[in-house]
């Protein structure tokens, strides 16, 4: 499905440009990101987007090649592997009981630039 790239980026930015990412060596201790992750969770809950965030992180973690770096943000120069590590950590913090998909079983997602109105059309199931 087509996913609202900037909507997801609004949440991942809290990770990649947040308090944890401000540390001199952010990947050395991922617990520094815990409050950022709580902020992500609260923001997604407030917006009613937790399902989309979960499915998006799952898709990015399972199939990161060529696209996860779109969510690197501006700041610490995360590598693809570091983003996978960070997003995986966040995924399990927010949804401790959820399993990540096995490769090939993730939802096929294309992260595209779209307006909020276009996204509303994407998830409108009316006839």
């Amino acid at each position, binding site marked *: 499905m087509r996913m609202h790239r900037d909507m997801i980026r609004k949440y991942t930015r809290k990770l990649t440009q947040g308090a944890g990412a401000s540390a001199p060596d952010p990947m050395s201790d991922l617990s520094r990101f*815990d*409050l950022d992750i709580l902020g992500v969770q609260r923001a997604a809950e407030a917006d009613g987007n937790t399902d989309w965030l979960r499915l998006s992180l799952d898709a990015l973690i399972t199939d990161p090649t060529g696209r996860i770096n779109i969510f690197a943000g501006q700041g610490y*120069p995360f590598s693809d592997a570091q983003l996978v590590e960070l997003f995986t950590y966040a995924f399990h913090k927010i949804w401790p009981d959820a399993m990540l998909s*096995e490769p090939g079983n993730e939802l096929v997602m294309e992260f595209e630039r779209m307006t909020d109105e276009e996204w509303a059309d994407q998830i409108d*199931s009316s006839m």
Partner: protein
Amino acid sequence: MARNPDALSKYPKIQEWAAKFYEVKAWQMSNTPPDPAESDPLAGRRVTARSEIDKIALGKTLLSGSRRAFASAKAALARKVATISDAATFDEVDGEIAKLAVDVAAQTEIASARIISEQSMQQVQAKFDSVRKSLDEGGYVYLQAKLSDVMALHREAESKSDYDTAQDGAAAFIMKAAQAEAFGDFYSKWRQDTLAFTEMAVPDVQKATALGNRSTCKAAANAETRQGKFTEAQAELVKFAKQAPIVEADFQDARPYFAKVKEFENEHRVTFSVVASSDVKDANKLKRGYKAARKLGDVDHKYVEAIAAIDVLLLFVTANYDLAVEINKYDKMMLRNEPYRNAKRDAEARIKAGDPAGAAQLLRDFAEDAGNTAAIDACNIRVSERALSREYDALSAILTGTEKSALDDAWTDLGAARSQNPPDYATAKPHYDKIVDMTNLSEIISLMAEIRPVRGKYPAADGYGFLNSYQTSRSAGRFAEALQHLKPVVPKVKALAGYLDVLAFANQVLSKLPGGSALAAGLTTEITQAEVKARGGNPDGAQTDLDAVLTGTDYAELAEQQRDYEIRYDALKKRQNRALRLMIINEAKTPLVTALTSIRSLGSSGAYDEALLQMHAHGHRIEEALAYAAAHKQAKMVIDALKRAVAQDPTREAVIFAGGPSKSDLESDYGKAEAKAKSGDYDQARADFDALILVSKTMIDACAQAYEDADAVGSNAGHSLKRHGDHVSDDALILRLKDGSAPGGGHSPTSASSKFKSRADWLAGREAAAEMAMQAGIDINETELDPGNQPTPHDYEIDHGKPIDEAFVGVSKQAKFDPNTGEFGTTEYYDTYEKMSDLTRSYVLFVWEYEKIDGATPEDNADYISKYTAKNGAAPAKIAGRWVMMQQYPVAEGWDDELKAYVK
């Protein structure tokens, strides 16, 4: 890529004619043209003049503003020719016609040159984009400067000769970029190969020497590429292998092996993983085989043997991939099924016999055999949890009403039947089938999203009946069938968008024609016929027919005017909305809103010529309004920031307000400037607000520093000014990208190193974020929180409405080689970077900093309560701490430096 320029602003001749036709129209005209049959001594001249006007062709290459100005001038002159009655005025009009013909010809020539130049610029940009990531720092800097020069030639061109010069520049750029590309290819391989060879084949005691030589060669090459000398640069790189401790012959032997490893990682890693994780015979040996091959190369330096070993593995992967894909559809339980076991065994025999296509086909034949359906269904049901759960999650989040409950019920029932021991396949089957059928809804919803904008904009679209069959099937819960009905009609509904646009446009043109005229009757007939065709299922054809009518001679001028007006009005309204969003007082918005409403009235009444000129003037007014709005916002934020600083710590007042105007003077000046904005005098208001910032400079500097210093106390915060302040040099910004050295000290790698143009912008950004936080319920002045209120970081993006910054953005990272894993990678530092300027947004992050307890900083509220309780023997009533600004920097992400706008 640059947008099309506005013809009225760019070309003086067009501005002249736009004004001229207005003038021409204003000439005194007789209300009653002379009777040509009896008393018109100028009849012959009229025919000739009219013919000369008709000869002036307005080609499609002209910019719409040029076409409109010329078309209106032609129409005005034609009206004048029809009505003037004295020879002297006729001489004057003939002169105007001749001048118009000359100017149109010249402008047409310019337009053709502009289009060719524009195409060249697209090629230039594409070439740069394809080359940029492979270059070294010098090459990147050199080529980016050349690109910028060529783009400027095109952007600033006005005459044909200017555009020709730009095109010549583009051709020269492409040639130079080709040299750069050849160098880039060499350099990309060189930097990886030299690093890998040094790490793997050079003894530890000599590594430092080799790496030093490598840096020297790189620096020498960089000095050459900075001047565009790519051949000389390559010669410098070649020197690396000719110096001890490198043995050149060994290095050259190793390079094909490095290339093979890279090819494997880039091109075969995915297919390798598919086969390696499959149940294909001997696939479990693949990973061990690859490890052994890498050891041959990385450790034993037997490069030829290592390449051969990797090739053998790749042959196995290629031969088995299709079969692995088929086998991966089943779980291990299928091995208890005899027909499956036989099919798999036969397929493996086919692989051995060199027939991989036949092998995969055997598995497909097995799947299509009706006798195996029950076993395959059972397998599908067993794996449905992992195979379908994400699709179910997504659908369940989207669906509503009966469809959602049907899906959720089927999923629950399937899970229950699957969980039986043994699984109850008979009960599970209808639920599984139902879910599989409902997964068609994913594609249905996606297709409906494509046509929803058409249906939203034109509610009449549904009345064309294209969706009826699809809706019937979906209502009946037959989703595969619904999808089959929907697919072929989606293009038709999309085509309706174009048709209905043209239909609405035709009706607008019709409304401007005199009622009862032959033209009106003709257009009405054409519209009726087009409707019949569209309703018959051919909206594309109907659109083509109506387009042909509207671009035909009878309606072309009116249609062109209407279309041009609508495009310009929409663009103007968009720019005005941005200005209105930035304005912080409603009174300042009124003059803009009133003027645009007046322009809309002109357009609605068909007065397109007047509307065109007024829109041109209004565009300038919007620019003034934008500049004012940005200055007003900055002044307000700065004054609020000064007040907040004093409110947080009253001792700051004496420091901050020493040497500048008093608070009351500032507020008085602010009020006067605001009054000018309310009266619509944007330019003067902007000048006054700018002046206010200027006289407050020492206060702004002191206030910004006070915030920075306070944030830094016992915290990782308080480094924004040091790293992004206006005092930071370009070299310091670049150094941070190259080795992580942060301006002002410390190590902090970044992907974009940026700085503010002024402390006023920095202070305004901080305060704007603080006020946005307040609107979201976060008071950054707070120093204690309720224990149940766990704070999280809060981030904001501020639109300053004006350029605030310049930045260097990392492009390609430095290479690294891990000798332990044998993998190539990148460091967190950059080899090349791109300069950007005039960014307009900043990013601000506020973080709650806990008060330390016995020298330790609590991690969260629970930790604070625990530490506090351990120390005091009782839980705290409040959580002590403060909000600090952890980050503030200009936003470079998504910035297009050519357009000077955010595009992502």
